[in-house]
């Protein structure tokens, strides 16, 4: 089996400005944050980001990487609204396609299934088709003649997901409460990149969890990154929960340009190792 191990920066080197990038996880849960931080350090720009959004979307907006968003929400869960997302919307600095949450799943599933659209009831009657005038409806060819929203396939140039374990070939495993839609993000993408807490020998995968926890197959995965604490500050259960104190610090800093500059200088000016070191130091300080 091919060895697909890479670093975050090697993944980012395969991405191009203007690409459509799908990001797995949900809100502030199991986000591939080390890959997102690597994009923020890069010279990529004008990305379209598709996600059940959280701080991944926030950081990319703050770093000026995202030109367009497709989402059902952008939330920090325990803090309902992502502050950078809110600022970008209210400042008019980002183009958005705001969809119903289920529409996003359907768009990814359509792309993963090589269909141009999938019919769905959700969205009809709401303002979602009004503010997204590119959306079309489709009429059932059967006797019922029902009209549905034709949710267009969401083709991704690349998908980024963070899982608990993977082997070096890209067989990925989740051990937490929910797979979210990570498998669909991978399936909808030209190239999918999996970061994980630990790369383990294939034989160890089924020791860690039931066979049903093997979510992503190596045939869908272009690269595997070992990223311990890589989802920080989002949840990555059972390895760790959300760093709520850090998330509060992030949200407070995001509300004020000066505080954000200080936050960026302290945590985000170096590479992933220096980010993790700064986080560890501040956690240690909090304990003292």
């Amino acid at each position, binding site marked *: 089996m091919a060895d697909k191990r890479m670093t975050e920066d090697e993944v980012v080197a395969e991405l191009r400005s203007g690409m459509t990038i799908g990001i797995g996880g*949900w809100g502030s849960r199991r986000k591939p944050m080390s890959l997102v931080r690597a994009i923020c350090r890069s010279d990529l720009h004008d990305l379209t980001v598709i996600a059940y959004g959280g701080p991944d979307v926030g950081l990319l907006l703050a770093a000026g990487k995202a030109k367009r968003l497709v*989402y*059902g*929400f*952008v*939330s920090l869960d325990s803090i*309902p*609204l992502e502050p950078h*997302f*809110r600022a970008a*919307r*209210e*400042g*008019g600095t980002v183009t958005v396609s*705001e*969809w*119903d*949450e*289920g*529409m996003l*799943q359907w768009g990814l599933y359509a792309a993963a299934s090589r269909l141009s659209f999938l019919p*769905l*009831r*959700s*969205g*009809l*009657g*709401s*303002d*979602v088709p*009004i*503010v997204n005038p590119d959306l079309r409806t489709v009429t059932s060819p059967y006797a019922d003649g*029902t*009209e549905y929203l034709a949710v267009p396939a969401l083709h991704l140039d690349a998908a980024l997901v963070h899982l608990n374990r993977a082997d070096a070939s890209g067989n990925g495993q989740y051990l937490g*409460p*929910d*797979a*979210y*839609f990570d498998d669909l993000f991978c399936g909808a993408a030209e190239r999918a990149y999996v970061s994980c807490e630990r790369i383990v020998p294939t034989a160890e995968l089924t020791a860690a969890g039931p066979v049903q926890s093997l979510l992503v197959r190596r045939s869908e995965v272009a690269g595997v990154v070992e990223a311990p604490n890589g989802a920080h500050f989002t949840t990555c259960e059972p390895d760790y929960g959300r760093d709520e104190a850090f998330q509060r610090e992030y949200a407070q800093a995001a509300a004020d340009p000066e505080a954000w500059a200080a936050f960026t200088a302290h945590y985000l000016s170096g590479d992933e190792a220096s980010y993790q070191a700064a986080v560890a130091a501040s956690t240690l300080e909090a304990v003292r």
Partner: protein
Amino acid sequence: MSVQEDVRPDAPVDPETVTRAEFCIAACADAWRGDGEILASPMMTVPTIAARTARASFEPDLLLSDGESRLYTGTWAIGETPPLDRVEGYVPFRRIFDILWSGKRHVMMSPSQVDRFGNANISALGEFARPTRQLLGVRGAPGNTVNHPTSYWVPKHSTRVFVERVDMVAGVGYDRASAVGGDVERDVEIRRIVTNLAVLDFGGPDHTMRLVSVHPGVTVDQVVEATGFALDVPADVPESRLPTAEELRIIREVVDPRGLRDKEVRA
């Protein structure tokens, strides 16, 4: 944590001892009355207390989740996680979509704006292209409202929430559903709206909002004044019902012993 067996459900209740929040919880619980074996999905504190109280008393077949990925039996306190042997099902987000598309769910959401036909906004205030205030986004509201019953909880009834026109239709109301027709028109059901002042439904002409009851201490005029459109007001508006002794015991001793309900409702 368990529901005691020694309670007299018909014990008398002194209305003077019942708080506004507890009237609201009883009114929210009634939203799920008669729903049977469906998933009750409450958002915010008062609806969460209400759904657990409904199941622990008059609606025992409801399914309830921890808001994460598990269905649990029994009754547990706000902020508490029940033990693993209470798990009866697995409902990751993808399966929540399956359930909501199947129609076997009744959600209670909290809108920032709602109009007389029940169109609800949780997305953004002002022009959508550049909102004056970004809210949550439409989230699951478009799908919820056209697939299964929806109720709303409004902790602060005001003309800012009850508006002539919502800025963005996230949750679909009756006029929009009827314009679509078909399955959407058939399945849309905005069961009730509970506020800190009153209970409302859509029993007015052409499914417009109607005043059902006012909470004790609230006048009909107060509700009318706090509503930014002409409300259907029947000649006789009763007071909202008193919670039963059993419901009050569940609320106070089992589900919300810390009194979080009073933080969400100001009378």
